[in-house]
């Protein structure tokens, strides 16, 4: 027993070491966000002192330069609506594909699965061009683009799960006089809830952090957080390291809040998503 305890302690220490390694980078950025811009890049590991401590100046400067709140708003808007659209429409499509056999549906299914491995660079120009031609280059239109782009993974995951749902329950509902819409939303969707959560989480992680797609499609008029941060680097003629640090911290905060509140679902969702795949 004593040996086991020793082993556990050793394991704990190793894990602790790793945990510190994992937290360190974020902690360093947080610390530097309170330092004056010229004392950051050369001495990032030095704590702020009386000379270099600047209170919240970097934050006010950064928020002003990047329009952080509007970027936050657009990121939130696009993520929430895109994820909602993806969950609603792809679950319906997946159910239809599984329940209605047919050559067209199989083709659609395989085309969707195929889209998962295609690198974004393949379509970056043509897609932004199409989006512009159809007037989809606005925060509402991009929701539609995300629906099309996220459809592959999401339909794939929903179909994987729906295949395991016995068809008898639905037939019973149909006999009771439900039409397909009612059957789906009242009977099927509640069963799909765990998968829906997984799909929602995976898509949230992707869309919230996506850079190139929003940059190319709506980047000049509506900046999301990643676009605003990249612009801070290239724009305004100079890189203000202080503002940069502050913006990195502000970009991480919503993610951490989201993570800590939904942690259980996220970890479960990720594991579930993988097993299905």
């Amino acid at each position, binding site marked *: 027993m004593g040996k086991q305890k020793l082993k556990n302690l050793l394991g704990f220490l190793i*894990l602790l070491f790793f*945990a510190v390694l994992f937290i360190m980078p974020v902690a360093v950025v947080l610390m530097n966000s309170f330092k004056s811009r010229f004392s950051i890049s050369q001495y990032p590991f030095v704590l702020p002192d009386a000379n270099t401590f600047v209170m919240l100046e970097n934050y006010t400067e950064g928020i002003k330069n990047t329009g952080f709140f509007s970027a936050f708003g657009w990121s939130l808007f696009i993520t929430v609506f895109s994820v909602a659209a993806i969950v609603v429409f792809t679950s319906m499509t997946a159910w239809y594909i599984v329940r209605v056999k047919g050559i067209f549906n199989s083709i659609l299914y395989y085309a969707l699965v195929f889209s998962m491995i295609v690198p974004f660079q393949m379509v970056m120009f043509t897609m932004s061009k199409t989006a512009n031609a159809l007037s989809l280059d606005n925060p509402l239109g991009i929701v539609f683009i995300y629906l099309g782009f996220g459809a592959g993974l999401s339909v794939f995951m929903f179909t994987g799960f729906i295949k395991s749902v016995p068809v008898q329950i639905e037939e019973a509902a149909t006999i009771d006089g439900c039409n397909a819409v009612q059957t789906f939303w009242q009977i099927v969707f509640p069963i799909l809830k765990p998968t829906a959560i997984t799909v929602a989480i995976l898509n949230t992680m992707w869309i919230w952090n996506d850079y190139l797609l929003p940059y190319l499609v709506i980047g000049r008029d509506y900046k999301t957080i990643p676009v605003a941060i990249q612009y801070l680097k290239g724009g305004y003629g100079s890189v203000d390291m202080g503002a940069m640090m502050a913006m990195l911290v502000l970009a991480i905060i919503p993610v951490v809040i989201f993570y800590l509140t939904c942690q259980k679902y996220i970890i479960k969702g990720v594991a579930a998503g993988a097993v299905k795949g």
Partner: protein
Amino acid sequence: MRTVKRYFPLFVMPTLIAFLIAFVIPFLMGIYLSFTSFRTVADAEFVGFSNYIRAFSEDNLFLNSLFFTVKFAVVSVISINVLAFILALMLTKTIPGTNLFRTVFFMPNLIGGIVLGYIWQLIINGFLYRYGYSITSNPNFGFWGLVILMNWQMIGYMMIIYIAGIQNISTDILEAAKVDGAGAFTTLTRITIPSVMPSITICLFLTITNSFKLFDQNLALTAGAPSKQTQMVALDIYNTFYSRSGYEGVGQAKAVVFFIVVAIIALLQLKITRGKEVES
């Protein structure tokens, strides 16, 4: 279920239209444009395979970036999976605080690539400054910087998947092994690894495709410096496309080649590891 069929417009149409607009049409258009010389699509002129030839012959950028990407993918796929697996093994033991550790390890995965790139640029430069270097001093710094960044980001994700796999192994088998006198190492190679083969398949798939497609992190961390020697394929395509005029077709051709490479590698990997799953 025949009645369901009538609901096609409602159930499939929205996804289908979005999919057509966001993916199918651009994809087909992309293949077509790779055989043309164009600037705005409307002025595309058919030029046959010349874009493909130019992509490889005019300079070594594309080949170098492909090679760099492959090197990066090999190193990071191995390191990520080994480390994630080890952490998963430890976290499924009776060590105190496993939940907290799991939370910490997974967190970086939620931070976006651009933000991650700048975080690590600060850390790595801060470290190298002491020795009079910066991340752009030497392409090796950029390479290892990207590997470290990728590990930091992906280990937690893969760890979660491995944990799920390990927890699925029935305790009966493990106890039977113990009764038979199997040591820790034998248990690992004979029971644990074969049983988590499905997790390995998916983890390899995710790490390989993500390593190949890496863009944001590359852009933010090194942007290809020095001399484009740390430029990965995705960034090279982007730069060919948007930073040089007269090269739009070449960029599109590179993208098609890139797509084919990724598709072949992904399918090959799935085939090989799936095969292993069946055997076990």
